[in-house]
């Protein structure tokens, strides 16, 4: 008995150094960054070993979201949202599509898998360098149609200034409430089949009421800014999104392929015997079964899209505002501009968005472990 408890102590002591390291380097550092984001650390004396810092509360955050100089950050944030959504749709969709194709066991499956997955092993700097050359305005992808006898394209992949889906930042509060209402209604529609009464009470009616309220009384909500400021999805980011999808759809393909292989042949045969077509099998049997994989892929891809820095740095350089991203902005603000507290505030905004996805996911994982 005594030996057993001695072993338990040894186990704990083995883990202790890592616990301390993770405790300090993850949780301590996050706390430190939160604190830094509430100070005025920056300017000329910022690089001193003991820089002057004063507590300023939420001022940095207010500046970022409503201040005169925060316009760049707001455009970056809008870019990041569009970027994440398109990366998720593109990489999950294409990855799933390729996995379904490879699940038909074509000849040369191994070689094809190797081809689709190799971008995953590359560094973002490597792929960014190559894609920058591929998307050069008068060359690369744009001249490809020439070889088929068409006119070359003239799309300005990485330097376009035009934007679509433009909205006014002034209205951000109203837009956010509309989004909330939309999500409520969407969830309600999805749950309608299962339990119509609950779906109406819990989701649909609150969603419709909320939407109607903003529509009628929206003008009461305060403006975020005193002047108009337009942001939208900048077309120059398309090139970056394509490069990221190229790099990561192989990853989702590998995830889905592993999942498809894990589904027993019996189940597949049974579905086919019941008259399911190929498409029906995937739509109604295989893909619903792989929901955990889809969730993992979404979590990992959104995490990647939130820290997107290297690829943008390599593709459009640090100075192209049109394709900016908060992660890049944080680096520039902190290490080029020496505005440490502003950089910390940007980092915390990124962190909070990431935590919105990750905390529920990890809590779910933990509960799952408890049940087993």
């Amino acid at each position, binding site marked *: 008995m005594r030996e057993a408890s001695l*072993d338990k102590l*040894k*186990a704990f002591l*083995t*883990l202790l150094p*890592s616990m301390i390291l*993770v405790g300090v*380097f*993850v949780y301590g*550092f996050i706390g*430190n*960054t939160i604190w830094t984001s509430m100070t005025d650390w920056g300017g000329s004396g910022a690089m001193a*070993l003991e820089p002057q810092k004063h507590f300023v509360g939420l001022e940095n955050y207010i500046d970022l979201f409503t201040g005169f100089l925060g316009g760049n950050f707001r455009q970056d944030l809008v870019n990041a949202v569009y970027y994440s959504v398109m990366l998720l749709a593109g990489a999950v969709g294409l990855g799933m599509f390729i996995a379904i*194709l490879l699940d038909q066991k*074509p*000849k040369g499956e191994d070689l*094809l898998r*190797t081809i689709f*997955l*190799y*971008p995953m*092993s590359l*560094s*973002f*700097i*490597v792929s960014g*360098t*190559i894609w920058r*050359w591929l998307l*050069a*305005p008068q060359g*690369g992808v744009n*001249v*490809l149609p020439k070889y088929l006898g068409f006119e070359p394209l003239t799309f300005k992949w990485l330097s376009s200034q035009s934007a679509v889906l433009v909205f006014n930042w002034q209205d951000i509060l109203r837009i956010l409430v509309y989004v909330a209402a939309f999500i409520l209604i969407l969830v309600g529609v999805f749950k309608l089949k299962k339990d119509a009464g609950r779906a109406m009470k819990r989701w649909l009616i609150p969603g419709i009421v909320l939407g109607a309220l903003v529509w009628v009384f929206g003008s009461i909500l305060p403006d975020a800014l005193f002047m108009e400021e337009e942001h939208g999805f900048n077309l120059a980011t398309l090139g970056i999104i394509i490069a990221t999808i*190229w790099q990561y759809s192989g990853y989702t393909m*590998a*995830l889905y392929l592993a999942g498809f292989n894990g589904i027993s042949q019996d189940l597949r045969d049974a579905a086919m015997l019941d008259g399911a077509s190929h498409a029906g099998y995937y739509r109604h049997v295989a893909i619903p079964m792989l929901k955990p994989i889809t969730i993992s892929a979404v979590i*990992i891809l959104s*995490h990647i899209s*939130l*820290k997107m*820095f*290297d690829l943008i740095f*390599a593709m459009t*350089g640090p100075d192209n505002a049109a394709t900016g991203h908060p*992660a890049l902005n*944080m*680096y520039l603000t*902190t290490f080029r501009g020496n505005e440490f507290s502003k*950089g*910390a505030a*940007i980092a*915390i905004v*990124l*962190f909070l968005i*990431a935590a919105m996805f*990750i905390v529920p996911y*990890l809590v779910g*994982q*933990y509960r799952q472990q408890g049940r087993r």
Partner: protein
Amino acid sequence: MTARKFTLGNVFLYGTLALLSLFFLMPAYMAAVTALKLPADISLPTAWEWPSVVNWSSFSDALAKLRPDFINSLILTICGTAGSTVLGSLNGYVFSKWKFKGSDVIFTLFLFGMFIPYQVILIPLFQTLRAMNLYGGLPGLILAHIVYGLPITSLIFRNFYAQIPTALIESARLDGAGFFSIYLRIVFPLSIPGFVVTSLWQFTQIWNEFLWGICLTRHTANPITVGLANLAGGQAVTWNLPMAGSILAALPVLAIYIFLGRYFIRGLLAGSVKE
């Protein structure tokens, strides 16, 4: 498998796969073709065409510029990989076979460290390394890679050790073996595939990392990713050098991927938390 027939479905299947393969191979082709051209032959409208004269000197030129960074990356990657896999293996052993009250919570708290955007710890990391006199050189970068590698290496080893039957550990304990002797005599010898998977994963991650490389090292200690970004970043670049540099920077991990692809994919899947 029955013999494939020439059906519409098959035409669609192989046609789509061929098109997709072209899309995925396009950047590799472009990099190779551009790297093999003479600088004077590189022009935007003819970027896709095969070089009239194959010129290998871009590779030696790029290597001459990137050699110090390449060596830095090798040292960094080997030390970082070794440190984080050894610690991760011990952690995984505790998390799977020596659970104590609260160890599952600690494990979940570890995992969180894997998913944070690293920008959120960058400023204190920079300050701490400066205060420890580790800023600017390789040791500080190695330390960072070891610490932030712990979540993923502990996760992979924990999942790997979960497959070792607990009865094996129990019987060894009845025979009088203790914590460390069980690890050394039973668990460690069984974990070679686990070490391969984890090391490949860490090697790839550390080799490809850029953010810490650019923020935490001075010029003399830059890893290869930073060197390549500098090489490609100038305005008046001739594109053969960055393309050759990209190929050089990609070679070690590409070689791993091509020759040890099975383990690479296992690491990829293990990194996605699902068990």
